[in-house]
């Protein structure tokens, strides 16, 4: 019993320590964008053509590397400011994966550029096709109440806003203050995900894992479900996936690292709060099906 507790501590903390630098870099970059780059600029550069608009939205994560924890409020604001729903959704699905930090952390976790490439191409496949289907299926607004203006008082996003002075040092302190708040917002989901991952590693016997992992159909479904439940940040989930590398197929690990940042428990709750229920259910269904399909296609393609 005591030895199991020691093993639990070591595995649990190792996942957290491993993910820590990437979470911190992610919140720092996110805070920089929040403080220094306006959404108007992003709206201005979006082309009118649907194909190019979705393409650009998919690749916006390269310069706007935001974690999935923070995408829903931004997507809501973008739609309210006139950005087409399909482009905003493409950005929401792709940005948490198709950004340099996540690509680098995936490479670091798996020690393989190949896996990082498969993850990114699968994410692009899912985001692009999902956005295209949405553009054909939803012509009217998908927001729950489109007339509500973007109110953003001191408590609507769960944390207090900076009271720091507007001097040079004050601005940088405000920047780190925002980063700190975002760290607490995301960190608790990382801790909970690491906790579940550790329990899974300690409790699920190797033979059982091998049985699920070697079944090409169930392993993908199991990992998609696992990704949905643990709600881990996109810059850390590759480390959790890498810990299953010896037991699960590459397809299932790709499905895990693609589905999780797009749809998980915490952003589903935010989506249901922001968007109409039928839209959210439709979105979850198509992302699930496309991830399942995409993970097979891309893994075998590369």
């Amino acid at each position: 019993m005591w030895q199991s507790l020691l093993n639990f501590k070591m595995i649990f903390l190792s996942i957290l320590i491993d993910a820590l630098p990437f979470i911190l870099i992610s919140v720092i970059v996110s805070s920089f964008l929040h403080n220094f780059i306006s959404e108007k600029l992003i709206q201005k550069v979006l082309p009118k053509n649907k194909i190019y608009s979705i393409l650009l939205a998919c690749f916006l994560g390269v310069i706007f590397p935001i974690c999935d924890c923070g995408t829903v409020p931004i997507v809501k604001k973008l739609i309210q400011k006139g950005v087409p729903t399909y482009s905003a959704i493409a950005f929401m699905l792709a940005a948490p994966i198709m950004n340099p930090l996540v690509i680098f952390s995936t490479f670091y976790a798996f020690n393989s550029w190949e896996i990082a490439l498969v993850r990114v191409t699968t994410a692009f496949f899912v985001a692009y096709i999902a956005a295209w289907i949405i553009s054909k299926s939803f012509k009217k607004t998908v927001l729950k109440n489109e007339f509500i203006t973007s109110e953003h008082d001191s408590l609507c996003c769960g944390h207090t806003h900076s009271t720091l002075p507007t001097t040079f040092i004050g601005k940088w302190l405000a920047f780190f203050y925002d980063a700190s708040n975002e760290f607490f917002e995301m960190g608790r989901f990382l801790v909970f995900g690491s906790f579940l991952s550790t329990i899974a590693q300690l409790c699920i016997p190797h033979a059982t894992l091998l049985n699920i992992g070697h079944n090409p159909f169930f392993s993908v479904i199991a990992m998609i479900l696992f990704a949905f439940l643990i709600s881990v940040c996109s810059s850390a989930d590759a480390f959790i996936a890498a810990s299953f590398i010896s037991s699960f197929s590459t397809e299932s690990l790709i499905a895990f690292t693609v589905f999780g940042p797009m749809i998980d428990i915490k952003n589903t709750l935010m989506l249901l709060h922001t968007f109409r229920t039928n839209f959210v259910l439709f979105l979850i269904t198509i992302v699930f099906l496309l991830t399942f399909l995409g993970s097979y296609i891309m893994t075998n393609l590369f």
Partner: protein
Amino acid sequence: MTYTVKDNCVKALILLCLASILFWLIMMNQVILYVHPRFIILLQISDVLFFLMLLAQCMHLKNSLKQNIPLQEDVAIKSHNFGKAQYKLFFYYVTFIFTLAVALFIPSTSLDSKLIENKGLNNNISDKFKSDISAPLDNFQDTKFIKISDKNYVDTIQNLYCHPADYIGKNVEITGFAYIDPTTKRVSIARYVISCCIADASAVGLSIDAGAENNLVAGHWYEMQGIISTVSYKKDISPVLKVTWSNEIKKPLFTYIFVQTT
């Protein structure tokens, strides 16, 4: 004390604890009990970021107290029907408090040998590896004595499993912990191999034949020498070390083999 002040204080306290624990782990070189040494530079940067975020939290707290903002925000909390703000504060930070409690009150150690039952032995010497390794290591062709050290551990054992016939009759020295398979009762000398963090640890080891009267204890550390022979198991030919000499040793301070990525 208002909700906002409490919130700021809790955040500052958690950041202080996280920064201090990380600083201690790095300074005492304990961090390699958890992650690959290549992460140390990234963790040093992380620690600096923690201190900067702590500073920002403290400055914000000071300024908001000076401007009497906590009282205004508490009015806003009441208007948003956050009646159970105290409970919310606890549940918001309970994961961090749990992490700190685990880090502070449970001692650090290396992974237990029994964990191999969950992780499996020699999983990374699978078909994938066998197909990648087409030829035996050149430097072992002409030598009769092979010392398996931390530096050549993974390469040598992979080669032994991929080309067992090439190693028959060679004298091998290996150090590791004893693992006894609960179903087959086969004994192996193994080490945990780490590529990123110990959550991805995989056990790599060599089957041994220590004779009928061996008194090896699972989880204990041994250094041993022996002659390589082969055995057929499930249509596969595997190497076995026929032990000629063994000695129980104290468990090393750092027990893992770290995979070199460059």
